[in-house]
């Protein structure tokens, strides 16, 4: 395997007990530093792909390699060690609203800490300093002691981003990070994700509904339809026809932003 292949899916399938096949034979490779957007209709398997990477969902068949390590058969403590390498941000931010912004960001270090220290919130000083610096990088250090619940949607998501980066992850997974945000917050959040991941040379995989956003930020697009990879290539190569194939419907039935951008 090449040195900088960070993530590898080999014929990965996911079947559910009720007969639903969320993923069918997915094979792909992601290298460090890439910024990949996954697009596709609802139910195509975008969330499933992401969650297989940090084993929030277990694949039924196939193999998944994270940094060369095969993760499909892992149990217990080793799963934790994989998860702390993989940061994730969520559509609903998934913060603990009663705790302060700083405490939420520091949650990113829990994978590296002992139970005893975590229970009493005894974080290391250097972790706290790093948290402050991260918050400052995304412009939220003024709110460090505010309760997370007091922030706006876009701000909450950025706290989530800071939390993910506290993990010093190798990969960042973003599950529809801007679906709940207004256009202005969306831009700030996507900019934060892009800038931070490029700065720290972290591979980034983002699930998006908004094709124009995907094209704006990603160099590589993966199109998923019905659990299968229908398109895996550059952003430029994404043509109208490709989009229609991914979404299984005519281009006129889609809202994709500035239509002239897409070639035929």
């Amino acid at each position, binding site marked *: 395997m090449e040195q900088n292949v960070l993530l590898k899916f080999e014929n990965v399938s996911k079947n559910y007990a009720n007969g639903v096949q969320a993923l069918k034979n997915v094979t792909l490779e992601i290298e460090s530093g890439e910024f990949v957007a996954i697009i596709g209709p609802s139910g195509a398997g975008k969330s499933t792909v992401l969650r297989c990477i*940090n084993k*929030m969902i277990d694949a039924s068949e196939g193999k998944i390699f994270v940094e060369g390590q095969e993760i499909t058969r892992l149990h217990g403590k080793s799963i*934790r*060690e*994989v*998860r*702390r390498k*993989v*940061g*994730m941000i*969520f559509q*609903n*931010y*998934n*913060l*603990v*609203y*009663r*705790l302060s912004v700083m*405490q939420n960001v520091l*949650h*990113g270090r*829990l*994978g*590296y*800490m002992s*139970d005893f220290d*975590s*229970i009493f*919130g005894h974080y290391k000083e250097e972790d706290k300093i790093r948290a402050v610096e991260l918050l400052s990088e995304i412009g939220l250090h003024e709110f460090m002691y505010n309760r997370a619940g007091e922030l706006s949607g876009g701000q909450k998501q950025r706290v*989530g981003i800071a*939390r*993910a980066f506290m*993990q010093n992850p190798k990969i960042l*997974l973003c599950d529809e990070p801007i679906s709940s945000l207004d256009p202005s917050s969306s831009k700030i959040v996507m900019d934060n994700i892009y800038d931070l991941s490029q700065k720290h040379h972290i591979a980034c995989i983002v699930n998006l509904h908004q094709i124009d956003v995907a094209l704006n930020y990603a160099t590589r697009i993966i199109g998923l339809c019905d659990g299968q990879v229908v398109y895996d290539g550059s952003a430029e190569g994404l043509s109208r026809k490709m989009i229609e194939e991914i979404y299984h419907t005519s281009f006129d039935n889609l809202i994709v932003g500035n239509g002239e951008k897409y070639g035929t």
Partner: protein
Amino acid sequence: MVHKETTDTQKKKTKRNPRGSHAYEVLLIIAAVLFILATAYTQYNPMDIILQPQNFISFITNDFFPVDFSKVFNNLDTIFMTIQMAIGAAFISAILAFITAVFGSRYTAPFQPLTKIIRGFASFLRNIPSLVWAFILFMSLGVGTGVGFVALSISTYSFLVRSFIETIDEVSTDSIEALTSCGASFWQKIFQGVIPSCIQGFLSWFLYCIEVNIRDSTIIGMVGGGGIGMVLFTYIKSFKYHSASGIILAVALMVIIVDVLTNYLRKVVETS
């Protein structure tokens, strides 16, 4: 039942789905059928009581009044005992229920099969009425305050396990998901995720249980658990209605005070 009032099932109105109107009609028919069957079986005619209230009225005027308040003051210590039992049982049950609930919610449990076992166990405890538990315990462990306390705790515990699991499922799923993805361990998830987000809900349920327990404690007292219930039961069974009326009023007052207090405290908790 303030907390139950705010769960989604009560607050959201049924959407006007095409089956909506039929559902009510079906329900009405079922209720009517059951009603007829039950009336036939019990030969119950409420008109007997309503149209002949002489018994009732003479009872109220002759036996109930005048109220003998002195008995109330004699029994202040038993009244306190009832309150102590209510609070103490709620407290112990809440702690035990919390520990059980984190293993019983499918979002926090380290082993999934455990959740079914725990829920089944709590359901078993809960669907057997508190007085039945009290009776079983009295027959095996003897009568007394301690046994009554345990009986009260069992019914409170089983109720709280379900309520706490409900709270965890409603409130913390998102944050638990995030903590799991960070690589947090079970205890980390509990202390940094579940407790901060659920503590308000837990306290609210706890206060509600105190309110319920005051009544349950009185009832359990009637069957032998000590406290004001036993006093009341004795007075009624020995025809000392003047004394009984005083106790009844005292009990009602106690319940109302505790109700008001706990509702106030719940509002404080919910807005903090």
